[in-house]
């Protein structure tokens, strides 16, 4: 349950703020070759990538994957990546980064007006004016151990057992007190007449018979 609310919470706070960094979907039919275009883009992970050469080891393991594994590219220190010689058509770019959830990106490389590239996130169909990919949310792989609280003890099976016992010990006599003294007497007599109470007597149906 906790995990659900957690992810929901994160989902509500998706960051759509785009950076002011000069980054664009640069496109040019590469010189000397007529077969393909180049897709340039940038992966931006909040908190990282702003400083040069001082990236945590985590970021050096980010992979950018074209068309489900056809090609794999890596990030430069500033977060830029590129795919060369991509033919015109509609492609899919995915970012694999442990700890972050990225939406796949639909990339249209136009053949008619060479070099025109359009990108859109497939998860929420949002178009990208600049080819900057940001994680939709952080991924938390572990359940957070909740700090020790009285409630957690109470909720545990043993806690429930103790609680039940306490109710029997302290609440039952109170209930008995509130009972009509005559009824009480009758019940006691009944009990005496039947001897040791068995489990069957305690059941509501059986007691009446």
């Amino acid at each position, binding site marked *: 349950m906790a*995990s659900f609310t957690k992810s929901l919470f994160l989902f509500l706070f998706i960051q759509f703020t785009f950076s002011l960094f000069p980054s664009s979907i640069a496109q040019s039919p590469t010189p000397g070759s007529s077969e393909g275009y180049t897709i340039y883009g940038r992966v931006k992970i909040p908190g990282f990538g702003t400083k040069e*050469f001082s990236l945590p*080891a985590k970021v050096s393991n980010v992979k950018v994957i074209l068309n489900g*594994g056809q090609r794999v590219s890596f990030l430069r220190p500033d977060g830029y990546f590129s795919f*060369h010689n991509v033919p015109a058509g509609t492609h899919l770019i*995915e970012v*694999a980064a442990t700890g972050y959830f990225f939406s*796949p990106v639909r990339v249209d490389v136009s053949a008619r007006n060479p070099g025109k590239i359009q990108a859109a996130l497939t998860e929420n169909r949002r178009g990208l004016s600049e080819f900057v990919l940001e994680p939709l949310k952080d991924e938390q792989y572990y359940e957070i151990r909740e700090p020790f609280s009285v409630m957690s003890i109470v909720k545990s099976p043993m806690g429930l057992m103790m609680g039940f016992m306490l109710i029997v010990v302290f609440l039952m006599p109170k209930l008995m007190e509130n009972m009509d003294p005559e009824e009480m007497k009758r019940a006691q007599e009944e009990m005496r007449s039947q001897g040791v109470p068995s489990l069957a007597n305690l059941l509501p149906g059986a007691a009446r018979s």
Partner: protein
Amino acid sequence: MAIRVFLTLLLFLSLTNLVSSIYEDQVGLMDWHQQYIGKVKHAVFHTQKTGRKRVLVSTEENVVASLDLRHGEIFWRHVLGTNDVVDGIDIALGKYVITLSSGGSILRAWNLPDGQMVWESSLQGSKESKSILNIPKNLKADKDDLILVYGKGHLHAISGIDGEILWRKDFASDSIEVNHIIQSPEVIYVAGFVGSSKFYVYELNTKNGELLKNNHITLPFGTFGESLSVSGDKFVVLDDLRSKIVTINFNNGDINYNQKQISDLVKDLSGQAVILPSRLPGLFTLKINSNVLFIKITNEGELVLVDKIDNAAAFSNALSISENQHVFAFVQYEDNKIHLSVKDVNDWNGDLLKEDLVVDHQRGNIEKIFINNYVRTDRSHGFRALMVMEDHSLLLVQQGEIVWSREDGLASVVDVTTSELPVEKDGVSVAKVEQNLFEWLKGHALKLKGTLMIASPEDKVAIQKLRLRSSEKSKMTRDHNGFRKLLIVLTRAGKVFALHTGDGHVVWSTALHTLRKSEECEHPVGLNIYQWQVPHHHALDENPSILVIGRCGPSLTAPTVLSFLDAYTGKELNSLSLAHTVARVIPLPYTDSTEQRLHLIIDVNKHAYLYPRTPEAIEILKREFSNVYWYSVEVDNGVIRGHALKSNCVHEVVDEYCFVSRDLWSIVFPSESEKIIATVTRKSNEVVHTQAKVMTDHDVLYKYISKNILFVANAAPKASGEIGTATPEEASLVIYIIDTVTGRILHRMTHHGCQGPVHAVFSENWVVYHYFNLRAHRHEMSVIEVYDQSRADNKDIWKFVLGKHNLTSPISSYYRPEISAKSQSYFFTHSVKAIEVTSTAKGITSKQLLIGTIGDQVLALDKRFLDPRRTLNPSQAEKEEGIIPLTDSLPIISQSYITHSLKVEGLRGIITVPAKLESTSLVFAYGVDLFFTQIAPSRTYDSLTEDFSYALLLLTIVALVAALFITWVLSERKDLQEKWR
């Protein structure tokens, strides 16, 4: 009422259990993760600085890695794409690792200490050609730091600082096969052959690539093989008859050649000569049969035979240890020993190093060797050698000792099976293994402290250690819950490893004798591994055994070998070289009296061969003769055929164990509109608990459960390639469910505008498959559930009472079943590499899908998310049954990644094995890395969790007893007072 409330509560609890997650401190308790790199192709040492000594390697699994030279651990590692084969690796500027990949078209620079990519250059070209990476050494004075790359018919000069292409020169138009790039400070020489007899040398300006001179020589004969550059201005090549060595001299723009008969050099050798690729200044090697000749070229161009070595295994490239001293290492075998020698290229008589090595026989021959030197305290040179063995393992040898070794064969797992461990013998006392009671209590007291969050940091460390070290985990005997097993894996090198599921250590490893590289068997590969004998009741004393199938080459017609191994010790019990080929192996569901499983091996001519070859096996098969069916898929023709056994083969002699097959049926798909891209069947050993499914309205649906059921996915031929090559209009995906006994198509479905790759898993009566929807441009997953309608009217209780039901009528595959199929599709975010489903001992536990994503993680997704009965607004009753409201995409809950924050780099497959405990399934994912864990899809309802606190239980009991006494005393006292009143 209370019971009702309780039940609803339970249901509610079970509903929220869709996520099975772990706490961070539980990592490593039930799972293990091993990182590998694969068989090393190139290695470059980096030991100049006083800091960390490392070796940079590139491997056949397309991994670029930096290893610690002291311990062999991985500093950093990058797994390139599957098509991104590494052609060369080197160090530039002393701080960048340069890799050339993808047939000489991608050049990348990685930061040496942390592996961050610094720059990447795409090198264009149209012609396929040899790719050469040339990084000048010892040119520190030169500020330009030029990297020369020849690839795709072009020579590129690239700045080492930022990867900028300074100039490029086209050689493709001259149709020259460039073989050598020689760099001197001002000029670059590019040499190669045009055709087989014209040798060209180009002289280029280093600064701008301008052509300075162009020379060529035409030899009066053709040449064989590639030419070899021996020193800056001398090349050697064999003539087309392979009888002469041609030396080409290149001097100040003049080219001339000399030739010499090989027989003049060595008298008593005949055979096909080959020049081995090497980089030794002034020296080259010639291989004739198993002999290796070292031939020196003097400055005058004379050829001198230096040495002749037989049984030479491998030799390294030259290493320059001082201004004009170049050394190299070679190894040779001599009666079970390995001699490692390091010699000076110019001074053959003296050995700089001569060591004897003892290498485990199981590792096979040495395939490659790389050397590196270090300066000893007495200023003499010491050498260390990195050796790549036949089983793909990597060894570092120094001073005659193996300093470290890496089992990198495990990066190329081909097939996996499991075996039980031996039963615990009575003689072994359990108490010896367990800690004594005091220790046990202490451990639990610590744990209790942990739960109550009053543990100090030291205590926490102690707790973690206690949990991870648990001796229980890696014991070599069978356990009650069936968590401890042997994972038996076959690697591409033909080596078999047994890994313990507890902690992943290698219990035994065997290089198959029959799968060693030899004259008859040039390129041995491991194919499959099967359980051969699983002793149960009759033969418990015997060890289980496994069957390994290997082939001597990539083609189907290459000779095949079978090998039988003892699963406990790894000893090869028996091996057979087969006279026939192996196209397919079918484990039959029959065993003989010694619990050996019968296997049918189908060869390319569609003959079936029975193994084991015993009269008893024949008897068993004769009994079941008419019940053996199989199918074959011909992807190229778009045909699926069904086969059955017919009669014995008739060769010259009648072979009792060979059978001719007959075709029963065939399904021909229209080749212009459909192409088979995926076929999946059910696992033969899957257990199904219940055949019926009770709906919310007390209706009963019967699952259509058949072992002979095949899922086929066909794509339109235009859209059978990768994503990005087809438009939605021309793409379509057609799904079939076929009965493989009768060839009947049970269900057919078309997804318009969709394409592959299709990954599917078949279990019980449902199939789940993953594909790409081009219209939405998202991945989709679909589920098809198949129900048997012919038994649907069995739900009337009166029919049961009156005996009018048809439940007892035999079920045969020949009956025409009335099938109803339900289907639903959902979006799924990621690309997928593999899909598996959990399997448990009795099949009671609900199922989870295990999805290997493109990010090399394994996601567990509850099957309830893929239920065709999901609707937008499920009724109250349906909700209680556990039906989740329909959403258009499947949720990716990060806590349900069973690999948590780890990655199984290069993920290729996922295997699930049931544990004895019903709730638990063992999962093994393999790729370049290995990962193992246990998962409980419905939580561990039949056992206490690992973090169950016994101490808390004890505490509760004590508290209860105390409370009992206190209340007793209190009541006594009250009673007394009552009586006094």
